[in-house]
């Protein structure tokens, strides 16, 4: 029995089929595990090791390098406030102070009701729209205390705060773990065909055989 539920197991197989080597799927599968459970459990890592032909230790070795993977339960909504220089200049640190005092947790902490986790993060590529924060990796630009209060109130009341978001794309804000709400999906008849590098020994058919001369590779 797979650790993944039936729907996710199907997705996991599809993800694996997109890589020439299965280990490349480790990070995508960790995301999938986090999507299912909200965090990366030891059992999930054992399962991913099996699917990718690695060991659970290797999976943990990779996973623990990356900030987005959580190894214990976190809030359903992860609020990341940027305090890097562009945001610092325009009040990012004050915004973080406000979140901390409003929610009653310090950066890194989770509220008792399990609703919010707060993080003090590095640049999130919204520098011209400083100060900014994200909730489950959805952007809120040119933020201030009012916007933050509204977003927190929305979430507490069970409303999606995305209408207030930078993209203005609305819709439901997924719980922590789910990133893109759209997945890559390719029907078998459209795939060019992913093959292991060992199985390729020449240029593809559209390349003239003598082409692609070098220019002194390093």
């Amino acid at each position: 029995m797979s650790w993944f539920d039936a729907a996710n197991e199907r997705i996991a197989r599809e993800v694996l089929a997109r890589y020439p080597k299965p280990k490349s799927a480790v990070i995508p599968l960790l995301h999938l595990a986090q999507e299912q459970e909200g965090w990366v459990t030891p059992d999930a890592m054992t399962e991913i090791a099996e699917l990718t032909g690695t060991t659970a230790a290797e999976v943990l070795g990779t996973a623990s390098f990356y900030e987005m993977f959580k190894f214990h339960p976190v809030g359903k909504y992860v609020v990341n406030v940027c305090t890097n220089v562009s945001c610092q200049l325009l009040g990012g640190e004050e915004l973080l102070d406000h979140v901390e005092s409003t929610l009653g947790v310090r950066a890194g902490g989770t509220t008792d009701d399990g609703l919010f986790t707060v993080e003090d993060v590095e640049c999130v590529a919204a520098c011209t729209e400083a100060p900014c924060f994200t909730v489950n990796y959805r952007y809120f630009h040119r933020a201030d205390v009012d916007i933050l209060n509204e977003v927190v109130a929305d979430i507490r009341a069970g409303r999606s705060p995305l209408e207030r978001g930078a993209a203005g794309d609305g819709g439901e804000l997924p719980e922590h773990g789910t990133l893109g709400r759209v997945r890559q999906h390719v029907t078998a008849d459209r795939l060019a065909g992913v093959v292991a590098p060992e199985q390729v020994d020449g240029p593809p058919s559209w390349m003239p055989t003598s082409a692609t001369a070098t220019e002194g590779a390093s």
Partner: protein
Amino acid sequence: MDADLRDGDGGGIVTGTYVPHAAGYVDNGGPKVVTSRFGHEDSFTLERSLATGGYEGLRTALAMAPDDVHGQIREATLLGRGGAGFPAGVKWGFCPEGVWPRYLVVNGDESEPGTYKDRLLMERDPHQLIEGCLIACYALGLTQCFLYVRGEMALAQERVAAALNEAYAAGYVGREVLETQFSVDITLHWGAGAYIVGEETALIESLEGNRGMPRLKPPYFPAAIGLYGQPTIVNNVETLANVPWIMANGAAAYRQMGSEASPGTRMFAISGHVVRPGVYEVEQGITTFRDLFYGEEYCQGIRDGHELKMFIPGGGSAPWFFAEHLDLPLEAREVGAAGSMLGSGAIIVMDETTDAVKACHRMVRFFARESCGKCSPCREGTSWEEKILARILNGHGRPSDIDLLLDVGDNISPGPYPVASHADEGLEAVPFPPRQTTICPLGPSSVAPITSTIRRFRHEFEARITRGDGIPVAAAVPAGEAGS
């Protein structure tokens, strides 16, 4: 953010205005290579792309021999937009002969402090990026492309996934593209939060399912040995986004924009203390920093009544500039000679209210947090730098700390560190790039804020050290005792 600045039908944009649905982007009325669709609310759909010339560059390319397509890119002098500014056409020629398969990896990890452009390009025009990837794959004989998007960019992942699904279904990607022999798969991949993964060999490690730690050099380019040990071209999102335009309009037309050494346009994100911060598509080489900061069509000056104190011209890794550097053009070589770099097109402007020590500490904290830990001068050095700066900031600095900071920096990047000129003190610029004792440039980058601010604002550091918390620090500590 002003929706009514746009004209009635929501299509055209009034010159020099924010485009609300492309948050941050300002249409300055200049030539558009990569932002031409940003005015349309549905710019990310296949329908809009096709209605506005999308995939025309691909059609042009497919009608040519692969080598001739490569020739066009070489002739255009398309400079890499990821930071190093290496010409894409030259890099594409580095794959060793006869070694197959080869891969294309797209670097969409955008995390350099101050950088905001690749996210916009992925969110607003994913088809343009996909088309650029397809043309590169066709030219170089690549059957597999990986599009590595930064983990934190949920909307970008969504938009790229949706665009890929549409493009596959419509026959632009996958088996027998547009009914030709050309077949290629593009796999959307995303990271999980680590700045260092933006370094191209770390990107490849991450894509192989490992910790994102840079590989030892040589080889200097993954074109020699990259993903799965095979030749691999790594290009930035913006670099590839330029490719469709070049194919559709020709290298000669591209070279008519910008300067001889830096043709075309570039996206610059200007953040901080300006009246109108934004992401602007700018002609390279001919526009100056002064134009950008003070021009009506750009940032419109320093925010109300304040004065420029300093600015970072090319992302968190770049040495800082000052008012005397405003007339430099946005041209890599000139900026390099003046002691800094254009890097990733990220400019952070700071006015006179900015505390130099605080800003310096915050930037150094970034590098200390993001060091991958593979080499000791960086792993240890960046955290020492951060700790020393933190204690200076908190009023517990020691008189020897300024020298100690410079000394730690010298262990990561020996010799004179690149730094801007300081005319008042008769100090010359030290040209970019820095030397390094480390595997990758992250460690040396941590030294940039330190040497930049100490050279210029040493008095601010000294004031903190002798008067922090109002309590005078005891007389000089012997140098050997500092540095815990």
